[in-house]
């Protein structure tokens, strides 16, 4: 019996890293956006936070796109 431990291990590692990274990015984006809301409430600008937030969301969207590419491949 041959169990492909290497494949299993890489599934494990990749899943863990990608999931945590994606969720972290997304949460960063959300905190960035909510900083904007706080800033507008106080009459300040939060351009940096907002740009960062959109960069995070763009990265997540890219990940989704890559997922679709994998499904189609």
């Amino acid at each position: 019996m041959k169990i492909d431990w290497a494949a299993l291990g890489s599934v494990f590692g990749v899943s863990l890293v990608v999931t945590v990274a994606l969720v972290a990015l997304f949460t960063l984006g959300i905190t960035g956006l909510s900083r904007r809301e706080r800033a507008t409430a106080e009459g300040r600008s939060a351009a940096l936070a907002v740009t960062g937030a959109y960069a995070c969301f763009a990265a997540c969207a890219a990940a989704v796109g890559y997922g679709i590419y994998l499904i189609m491949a």
Partner: protein
Amino acid sequence: MESFSLILAIVVVTALAFDFTNGFHDTANAMATTISTGAMRPKAAVAMSAVLNLVGAFLSVEVANTISKGLVDEAGIRPEVIFAALVGAILWNLLTWLVGLPSSSSHALMGGLIGATVASAGFGAVHGDVLVTKVLIPAIAAPLVAGLAAMFATRLTYRMGRNAEAKASEKGYRAGQIASAGLVSLAHGTNDAQKTMGIITLALVAGGAVAPDSDPPMWVILSAGIAIALGTYLGGWRIIRTMGKGLTDLQPQQGFAAQTSAATVILASSHLGFSLSTTHSVSGAVMGAGLGRKGGVVRWSTATRMFVAWGLTLPAAALVAAIAEWVCGFGSWGTAVVAVFLVASSAAIWKISRREVVDHTNVNDHDTPAEEPAGVVTQAIAAVTPPPAGPSEDLSATIPAPPANDPQAPSAASTV
């Protein structure tokens, strides 16, 4: 298509029926977290999942080809064997749906194939080591991988997001959940609809209606895609309820973490060559998300029943398929008996399910036997609304399930 025998027609219809059960059995995988956290209204969620399943069915024929080309050809497989396998798989799918337990449709199909093969060719025809590497290890690994990833992701998102505004985060997590649920639906369409295409093509090849090594014909792709989309749209509400509410109570953050973890695991596993079951991954991810939140609980009684169902899936489907194959062996009338039995027991299961209807109106109520009033209300609703009216849908979608009926309460009622 000239030489289209009766048995072949029966196999094709049965395969599409399996595809249909597969659809409504697995809606929960994509949409349970989305529905239970309120990110999408139940009907909208299943509609989106159905469309993506249909789209997914057309994206590639890779999986269908692995099934129809080479995987089982040494068995010298006959249409009757495939028919018996499908009978086992369908009945197990319906039974687990009735008790509201998520279980792998692929395992049911594999079990059915194994049982039918054993009955027709003996135990020698089954490779025990393949069983361990393809079924046993993935069944243990999938929930662990997805669960751990979801747990860490949940912890992280709660810690990082604690300063975020409630409104921004609610909108954000909703979008995130919908995106990852969409990915799972699409992946499901490409994988599971194609399993059916593969089976039908295999039967067509075995019956001599299609040349060996050909791609699935267009009508096969179309009908398999439509069958799985219809099943998905019908919504396996019982299973959705168990997965979204029964295992743990999900908040948007957890739902997002769980669904992202599940989508990642499914895609990573199918592309790194260690295929893991969608159902097992999603269930594991939901439990992991439950454990990841401070104060979150996993209802281990429900989880245990689910694990038992996973363990039983393969042998149970195999047993039914073996009996079906044995009866089919008596000739045409045997096949007819099996077909009648399949229809009759499916009807019976559906009939039993009507005793307590679970649909989009009450999918998020997780009532327990300890709570008599809730049970009475649910039953009253069930009695009053067999085709539920439009407005009630909005109501149940916006009113969250009462928090009173959670943590340690035994969850037997969720299953009925």
